[in-house]
């Protein structure tokens, strides 16, 4: 009698667990789908203008058009970047603070990129000089072609 009872108990938990497990796996897989997907990035070959026209030690704001995939929506949006010429090098920085994602701005008097949210500060090279940011500003790969600054890869 006891073994029969144990058999029914095992049957119950076994057959209840399988649908529950499969359903959980499927629904969690679908719910976490965006985690497995690659997000949008800057397109290649965007022309940021003549290198000669970029002033030394004075970051310039440039707008770059990117194709943004937002779920089923695909839209062309303008994204801000900083173009910095310093010590003979020209670099392109993302304006996104590496702390919690606010937009930094260049403070000409202070000669620093300031983040308005939590006081993060970066110097002209994008390195952290104050506040909580854990990393330097993200540098967007760019190169000079025919004296023009061009974003290199996405």
């Amino acid at each position: 009698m006891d073994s029969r009872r144990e058999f029914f108990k095992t049957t119950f938990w076994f057959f209840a667990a399988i649908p529950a497990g499969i359903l959980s796996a499927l629904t969690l897989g679908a719910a976490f789908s965006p985690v497995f997907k690659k997000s949008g990035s800057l397109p290649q070959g965007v022309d940021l203008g003549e290198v000669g026209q970029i002033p030394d030690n004075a970051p310039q704001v440039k707008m770059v058009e990117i194709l943004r995939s937002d779920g089923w929506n695909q839209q062309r949006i303008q994204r801000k970047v900083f173009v910095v010429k310093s010590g003979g090098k020209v670099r392109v920085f993302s304006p996104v603070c590496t702390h919690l994602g606010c937009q930094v701005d260049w403070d000409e008097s202070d000669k620093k990129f300031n983040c308005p949210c939590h006081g993060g500060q970066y110097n002209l090279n994008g390195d952290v000089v104050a506040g909580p940011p854990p990393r330097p500003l993200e540098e967007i790969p760019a190169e000079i072609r025919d004296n023009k600054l061009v974003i290199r890869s996405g």
Partner: protein
Amino acid sequence: MLRRLADWFRSRSGVDHLWNHWMRENVPSRINWFYTLGSLALFFFIVQVITGIVLALYYAPTPQSAYASVRYIQYQVVLGGLVRALHHWGASFMVIVVFLHMGRVFFYGSYKAPRELTWMSGVFLLLLVLAFGFTGYLLPWDQKAYWGTVVGTNIAGLAPVLGSYISTFLRGGSQVGAMTLTRFYTLHVVVLPALIVALIVAHLSLMRRHGITAPPKYEQDPEREEFYPRHAARDATMIFVAFVVLLALSLMRSAPLEAPADLNASGAEPKPDWYFLPLYQLLKYFPGKLEIVGAMVVPALVFLVLLALPFLDRKPERRIGARKPFAAAGGVFVLCLVVLTFLGSRGSPPAATGIGVAETSGAFFFGQKCASCHQLDRLKGVPDDAWIQQHARDKNVQLATSPKISARVASTLSAYMQARPKLDLSPAELHGAGLFVLNSCGGCHTLLGAGGISGPSLDRVGSKRDKKWMIEHFKDPEKLVPKSKMPAFDYLSDQELSDLSDFLLRFK
């Protein structure tokens, strides 16, 4: 440590009490596999809730985004197609299981006193399950969804006195559109789930309060045992098997997704999901003024009879052999459902004359823009939209009309030309179709599921009126229909009124 934590949780939460209440209930030992159907219905409801939550993460209820978001779920979301298929087929499984569960209760006479309220709450649950089906049908915003809802909400409009208010309320306006989508979405994911959860709790509590009946032939058998583990194991086995079938079906056949909803599409056949086919088929047997009988009276009567069943069949005897009139009525009812579903699955919609708004508009534009040069009888093949637009821009073609033919007009023209072999409109009717569009008759009247609702539907006007009546009515509507709000069309010539009548009288 873990054991102590578990003991603490059990003592504080009362989970043991809950387990004992639901799983250690004393049930008759003789209950059989048919008694698993209630648990199975509950399981499918849980499947719908879980898959529905995942779908809601990605779905956007606006006409601009609904279809694109469903396509995104189907093709871009990891496992999205499978989750959508589980939701789609799960709905059908749930309807089947609910019907089977009701069949078991009916067959065993389990609805009899003191379980009347358990049965009645079950009938309302069935209604809610069907309401889920109706509201969920629109959400993909594809052709089938759109036109099915146009017809469905028009049926609601047939209700006496309040009909137009009900359909306008359901649609959130005079047309199926953005407001309809947000309303149906809210009903589907907020209102109906809240109602059904409350009703399921009531249904289960009532079941628990009055206990489960044994099959009639074991009614006198006093042997009882706890639900867990033997009967619980049987429920779990049934659930497992049914889930495997659902999963296999979902893996083999994805949920359908047609072309996006197109208000001017020709040939859209508004057919409901299979569980509404009996109602859909019933409508065909009640044309004209009797339409309300098929659309409202019969379904309402069926619902009321189901609801009142425990009070109609009051004798305590539960064996089916001792309840022959009810057994026979139940058998006839099921047979009717099966036959109507079968016939409905084969037939075409009630008003399938093969001409829709696009074709009507196309006929008008053809008369305006093409007929002076082209005779349709001599046309070889049917030009598509792109060709028509290209042809209109072609500098080598002497056009009698402006070269600007918009994509919409081009699509109605090709819809008309494609439908023409089926339509066979006479020149007078063709002219009448044009007058129908030119005079914006569709602004107030519905024709084949599209148009306004402030005037009566013209879908079957041909079976109700004759030509003389039509022409007189156009000239002075109030003379024939007191308090009619329709303006007089006395500025149209006799010939034009005759042609317009010829066109409308085709709709029978």
